[in-house]
């Protein structure tokens, strides 16, 4: 019932079927290019002609659009305003307000930076929308990522919805005992104690039990583990990844060199 913590949308598309590492490399490449490219319009074009089409290929455009308008745009908009106002560059003043002034240059600069952030966040969003976290983690663990690290990520994603439903039960139990959760601020603050106590204590117990349960199944065993899930990885994808890595390296080199 509470499976909505990860962004992942289960659909069948080319993007969903790609190996998680390929998608992750693609995201990194997009970000690197957007941030290091000397050409002004790079991030804008990447967004319009790579990321948006990819969201259609991944069949998640609706969700992507939703996340973009609700999450990414407000943040980028704020960044844009801040930089437009406070960048002390340029002479062509467009607008002046006390000590704040917007110049043509600062506007251009802010636009580019906001776009870079949009590329970064939106490409990650797309990645999360089309990749199940446990698929990503089991792929990375297979490639040598320490199991403990994967466990921290995965267990957090799993525990949070559980805590959510647990806190609902606790609230119900205490309201049944006449706890008034409505009313003024002080009354509400006072009613927190009976809610937080069992929640924190219960969650700690649960974390311990989880640790014991996975240890009972040989979590820290040094031997090589097999995986129940086969995660596809074609040689074609390997070539793509190498291509992307070359792009990443090139963009870094170019940036240092230029």
């Amino acid at each position, binding site marked *: 019932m509470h499976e909505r913590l990860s962004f992942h949308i289960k659909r069948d598309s080319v993007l969903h079927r790609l190996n998680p590492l390929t998608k992750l490399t693609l995201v990194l490449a997009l970000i690197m290019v957007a941030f290091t490219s000397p050409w002004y319009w790079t991030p804008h074009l990447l967004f319009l002609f790579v990321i948006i089409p990819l969201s259609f290929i991944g069949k998640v455009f609706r969700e992507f659009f939703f996340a973009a308008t609700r999450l990414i745009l407000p943040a980028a908009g704020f960044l844009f305003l801040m930089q437009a106002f406070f960048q002390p560059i340029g002479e062509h003043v467009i607008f002046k307000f006390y000590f704040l002034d917007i110049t043509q240059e600062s506007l251009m600069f802010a636009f580019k930076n906001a776009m870079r952030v949009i590329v970064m966040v939106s490409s990650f969003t797309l990645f999360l929308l089309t990749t199940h976290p446990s698929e990503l983690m089991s792929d990375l663990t297979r490639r040598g990522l320490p199991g403990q690290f994967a466990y921290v990520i995965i267990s957090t994603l799993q525990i949070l919805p559980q805590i959510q439903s647990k806190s609902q039960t606790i609230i119900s139990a205490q309201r049944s005992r006449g706890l008034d959760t409505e009313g003024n601020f002080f009354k509400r603050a006072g009613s927190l104690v009976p809610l937080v106590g069992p929640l924190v*204590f*219960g969650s700690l117990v649960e974390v311990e039990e989880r640790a014991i349960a996975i240890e009972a199944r040989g979590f820290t065993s040094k031997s090589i583990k097999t995986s129940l899930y086969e995660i596809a990885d074609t040689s074609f994808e390997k070539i793509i990844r190498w291509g992307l890595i070359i792009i990443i390296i090139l963009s870094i080199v170019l940036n240092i060199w230029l």
Partner: protein
Amino acid sequence: MKIEINDLRFTYPTGLEALQGISLTIEAGEQVAIVGQNGAGKTTLVRHFNGLLQPSSGSVLIGEWDTKKHSVAKLASRVGYVFQNPDEQLFSKDVGTEIRFGPRNLGYSKEKIDELVTRALSLTELSDKTDTNPYDLSPTWRKMAALASVIAMDTPIVIFDEPTTGQDAVNVARIANVIAELRKEGKTVITITHDIDFCAENFDRVIALSNGKILLDGSARDVLGQEEILAQTYVDPPQLTRLGKRLGLKETVRNQDEFLKALK
């Protein structure tokens, strides 16, 4: 206090139709057990009694109060509800304070609270553990502390959600004793249970739910005798009842006394 349920329907936000038209009257002072397979709607039903859930359609009346028109905190003065897991409600640093919490919320006078707490402590045999931190108690005693904290609210209706799950025989007997005492005081007790022996030994009336509907509703004797119908909701009558049937006893027997009497 009378409970009247009229064509109650409830659908969860996920679209699951948990209750599909339940009509039911529970008179004051009745001892009712609710049985049925997992997911039959038992908990969903009783959560309507104190307003934790609101009907999608139909109505629930507690006395003359419509649960739609009163808050859970208000309804708590009429319906006490002991949740399944005591760890989801215990928070105080000692048992005594924990038990005072409910009656204090209901705004009773200090003298009345003292009296109610003492009574609840002795009913649940916790009197010597008043100053213990609830989390230092064993799970069985934590369960009793949770029971006591609701009994102390002195509500005319008390609901137990699976009180005997994970409890040893001694503690099951203690819980049965608590229910017997509440009966003497004229309180309505409604219990959800999977423990069919416990159900047969302590309750006059049994309601069997299946897929959000009432499958059987009647005296424990009548309901527990309907082996084939109960099987639809994965409930087995007590072993003695089934044995009595196989032996061809005329009456449906529920416990050892009745069984022995029928044999003579």
